[in-house]
């Protein structure tokens, strides 16, 4: 890019979420020499993510919590510590977004700088030292007065209303309780009949973080690398274990599991936050059009 005006901060949604900057699709964890030992590999350097949408920022803060629990994931955490994030409030509405229902149409935490297009200008706020350092490079920029801040508030209010391409009737806070009663609900079988087990919904999801760990050796058959790659609970071999056993071998069991992860299991690990941010990427990505969380939770809320 040669000119700032070429920067399309008005994009509606990206095909893949920004998670690959923190959890690459293929990430070397260690290199080894058979019989001699191994060395951890942590490859990261400072970087700036520019133009993250609020719902994706919410997802990143959820992943921050997940990956730092217990012993913490040094690979994720070191990447995250190296990141400076500039969030931009949504300007154009993507085809399937429902962030307006999920409380993720705006975001107050996690970012270093927030950009909001107000009238024809961007209102810039920094929240961290890194953000302040970035802002200090802006010369001759006037401070925003109360009027501008009020106009930004209006942008948020407007986004709350328009980022609703699907009408969610089941308040997100009710999802864990709905799922409590839904394990045998017929919807899982009905939807999963058309499931290709292609994992598209997992791969494009900003809060899907599961991975598989594999080893590969070089031609000397002695040295090699251990790496992790993105995995997905909708893939048939995801829950396959030794002995050729698979504890979620049916499409319906896998399909159900994904919604339980979003609405119940992951929330129970991160203080009740629903692990769906309403970006709508799964809705768009699903070839069979069965992956709409709004449809699923509305149905659960409506009984059988």
């Amino acid at each position: 890019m040669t000119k700032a005006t070429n920067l399309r901060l008005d994009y509606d949604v990206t095909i893949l979420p920004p998670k690959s900057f923190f959890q690459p699709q293929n990430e070397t964890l260690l290199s080894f020499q058979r019989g001699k030992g191994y060395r951890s590999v942590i490859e990261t350097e400072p970087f700036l993510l520019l133009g993250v949408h609020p719902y994706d920022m919410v997802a990143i803060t959820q992943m921050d919590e997940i990956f730092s629990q217990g012993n913490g994931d040094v690979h994720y955490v070191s990447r995250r510590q190296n990141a400076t994030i500039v969030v931009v409030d949504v300007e154009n509405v993507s085809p399937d977004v429902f962030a307006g229902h999920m409380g993720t149409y705006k975001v107050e935490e996690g970012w270093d700088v927030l950009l909001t297009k107000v009238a024809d200008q961007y209102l810039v706020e920094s929240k961290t030292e890194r953000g302040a350092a970035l802002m200090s490079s802006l010369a001759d920029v006037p401070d925003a007065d109360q009027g501008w801040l009020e106009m930004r508030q209006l942008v948020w209010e407007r986004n709350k209303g328009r980022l609703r391409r699907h009408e969610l009737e089941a308040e997100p806070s009710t999802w864990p309780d709905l799922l409590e009663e839904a394990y045998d609900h017929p919807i899982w079988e009905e939807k999963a009949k058309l499931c290709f087990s292609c994992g598209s919904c997992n791969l494009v999801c900003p809060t899907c973080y599961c991975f598989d760990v594999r080893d590969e050796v070089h031609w000397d058959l002695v040295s090699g690398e251990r790496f992790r790659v993105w995995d997905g609970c909708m893939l048939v071999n995801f829950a396959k274990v030794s002995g050729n056993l698979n504890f979620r071998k049916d499409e319906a069991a896998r399909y159900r599991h994904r919604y339980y992860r979003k609405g119940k299991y992951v929330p129970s690990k991160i203080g009740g936050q629903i692990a769906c941010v309403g970006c709508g990427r799964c809705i768009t990505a699903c070839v069979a059009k069965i992956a709409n969380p709004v449809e699923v939770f509305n149905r659960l809320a409506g009984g059988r």
Partner: protein
Amino acid sequence: MSKPKVAIFDFACCEGCQLQIVNMEEDLLELISVVDPVEWREAMSDHRDGYDIAIVEGSITRHEDEERLQEIRSHAGMLIALGSCATTGGVNKLKNKFDLNDVKRCVYCDSAHLPHLNTALTKALDEVVKVDYKVHGCPINNKEFAYILRCILMGKKPFIPNYPVCVECKMKGNPCRYEYGEICLGPIIRAGCDAKCPSGGFWCYGCRGYVDNPNVNAAKEIMAQYHKTIDNLRGRMFLFGSKQEQTL
């Protein structure tokens, strides 16, 4: 460790998968540092008897071929099927959709009656003999071939995807071919190709064959959503998906 002896054989095919091995270029030196090729018509002029691993390309289309393959199998401790023709029957299975006499006449015209042109229904290798490993694709991905071979030499089970091409296509960040109004076989076809065709702007032709349990029924059901017919889908599956299990 003594290097295992490897022989590469071909049956009905274009030999393009062997060519992909030749195309490993500098890595060929690495390859022969771990195996000892004793027979490889496409790349070697000399040949020695006896081998531990047979790598077999092509599909079985004549009765004589069945016997030859059985002979190869009887000498080999391990047999690897190389490429679509060998792993699924590949494009050669198109023949099985037609009357064999018509096929012969179509290809050989006036010579069709000659005895050496006798033909039988196309078979993948595993319809004739036990196959230990399959390297899928038309052509194969030579990096995957090298990886599988290294795993075998390590006594380790190689990871061969049993998920659809969509996985790799999504990871590439491609917009879905269905959004362009095309029928793509990606949702039912085995990945491992790195979604080369969809990334290059084409639908998936299905060269790696179906995943173990493809949802062919869903593929049919969604045609209406995309204003297509089941015949459109059938046409798309014709090239690589003819006369395989689970096909239309």
